[in-house]
């Protein structure tokens, strides 16, 4: 028997609400399969199981809010040994209804097309998406469909959600600034070679295959980190714990406000084209409210990129317990000395915020140097 528990999806998460089960008792489950959906302050997250086996029984019903670590279900045939007696009962953190007797769940329904805002609103208002006919483009369910089904006027529910996300961000960032002695280093990098490479590469590609500058930045960061394990690590139990692979959390802003940081695993081992596919996928799922638990638990460092619209530089705050975060400013054209000439070049600022318990300015400067060198030779990426 194995215990399937409420995962911790970030340092700031203390509890989550079980939204729905995608499996019922007796169903086979495979490692990596999504078997439940959990509501957190960061939105609805699809929860993967990390064991093969059979779903033996469900311990937490949809609607219950339980602390991180609570056993949600028991999986038979899993490697983790446990007995039914060891399974702690679900401890509701809040919610009006007491735990209900566990009953078999219906078969997982076919996925419905729904906008992120509508999905979140449906969860808030208790509207079953499967019963609705969407009125949006291509039949997508939109906010108006949910409100019509719920019979509600426009309320401040969305504001509540936004406020909860801000509270989660506040908790993580306050902890970071309270506990982590940050130091900052910044340099400006000539992005001309990278820009030329992108232009030439994208010229031959259909729009759906084109590569964004952010992909080069992610890959260069990952490769540069290989020589600086103290920056690709966690600071836990009062000691440095370097990671074995480079998984980069990508700061992703949400149109309704707030942000999430889904991760792309093993960035250093992937091609630029492959990374573009993964970046498009993870950003799309983040904005559609379809992130998975593994998206939020794997990052070993974070990258914050302002893209082409924004400020020249960003001085980001480390996401604990990570030991560093890299910030990229907007790509802008500036006067730049090339040899003895002044030329107009696309440049980008690169900022490293690092944990002084784990590293120091000398090492950080060498990391920026390595990152700069990689961006001058995009064929190495």
């Amino acid at each position, binding site marked *: 028997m194995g215990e399937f528990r409420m995962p911790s999806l970030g340092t700031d998460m203390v509890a989550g609400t079980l939204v729905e089960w995608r499996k019922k008792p007796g169903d086979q489950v495979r490692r990596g399969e999504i078997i439940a959906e959990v509501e957190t302050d960061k939105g609805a997250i699809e929860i993967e199981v990390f064991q093969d086996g059979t779903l033996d029984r469900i311990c937490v019903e949809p609607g219950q809010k339980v602390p991180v670590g609570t056993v949600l279900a028991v999986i038979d045939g899993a490697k983790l040994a446990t007995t039914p007696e060891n399974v702690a009962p679900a401890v509701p953190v809040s919610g009006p209804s007491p735990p209900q007797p566990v009953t078999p769940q219906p078969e997982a329904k076919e996925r419905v097309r729904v906008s992120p805002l509508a999905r979140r609103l449906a969860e808030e208002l208790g509207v079953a998406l499967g019963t609705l006919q969407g009125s949006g483009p291509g039949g997508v369910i939109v906010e108006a469909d949910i409100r019509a089904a719920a019979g509600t006027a426009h309320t401040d529910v969305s504001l509540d959600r936004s406020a909860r996300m801000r509270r989660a961000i506040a908790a993580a960032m306050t902890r970071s600034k309270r506990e982590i002695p940050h130091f900052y280093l910044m340099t400006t990098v000539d992005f001309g070679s990278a820009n030329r490479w992108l232009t030439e590469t994208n010229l031959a590609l259909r729009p759906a295959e084109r590569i*964004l500058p952010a992909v080069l930045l992610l890959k260069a960061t990952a490769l540069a980190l290989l020589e600086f394990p103290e920056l690709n690590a966690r600071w836990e139990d009062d000691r440095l714990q370097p990671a074995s692979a480079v998984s980069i959390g990508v700061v992703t802003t949400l149109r309704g406000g707030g942000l999430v940081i889904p991760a792309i695993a093993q960035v250093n081992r992937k091609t630029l084209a492959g990374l573009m596919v993964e970046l498009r996928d993870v950003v799309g799922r983040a904005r559609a409210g379809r992130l998975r638990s593994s998206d939020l638990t794997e990052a070993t460092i974070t990258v914050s990129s302002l893209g082409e619209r924004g400020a020249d530089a960003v001085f980001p705050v480390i996401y604990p317990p990570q030991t560093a975060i890299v910030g990229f400013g907007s790509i802008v054209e500036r006067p730049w000395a090339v040899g003895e000439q002044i030329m107009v070049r696309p440049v980008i600022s690169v900022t490293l915020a690092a944990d002084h318990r784990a590293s120091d300015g000398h090492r950080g400067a060498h990391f920026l140097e390595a990152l700069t060198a990689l961006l001058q030779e995009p064929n190495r990426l």
Partner: protein
Amino acid sequence: MTSDDLTPLVRQAVAVVVPEADVQALDPAVPIRDQLDMDSMDFINFVAALDELTHVAVPEAEYGRLGTLESCAAYLREQLAHRGASAGPPRSRDG
């Protein structure tokens, strides 16, 4: 086919990228990215959606012409006119 004829297709492409947007409420003369707070990923997905709907693969060098609904529609009309009848008509997502 006029520029106006293609504006619904452009709205359709926007809806693919930002499904929660009320695309009918977009001001045709105001930059789309400003109205919907679209970032570079949204924009490249928008260009890909235009390609899927019209078979016009807008080169990066001409992204500047895709600022507003009006300018997008005008650009597409120009490209489709150059292409002539051989490429066939633009298609909607619903076939």
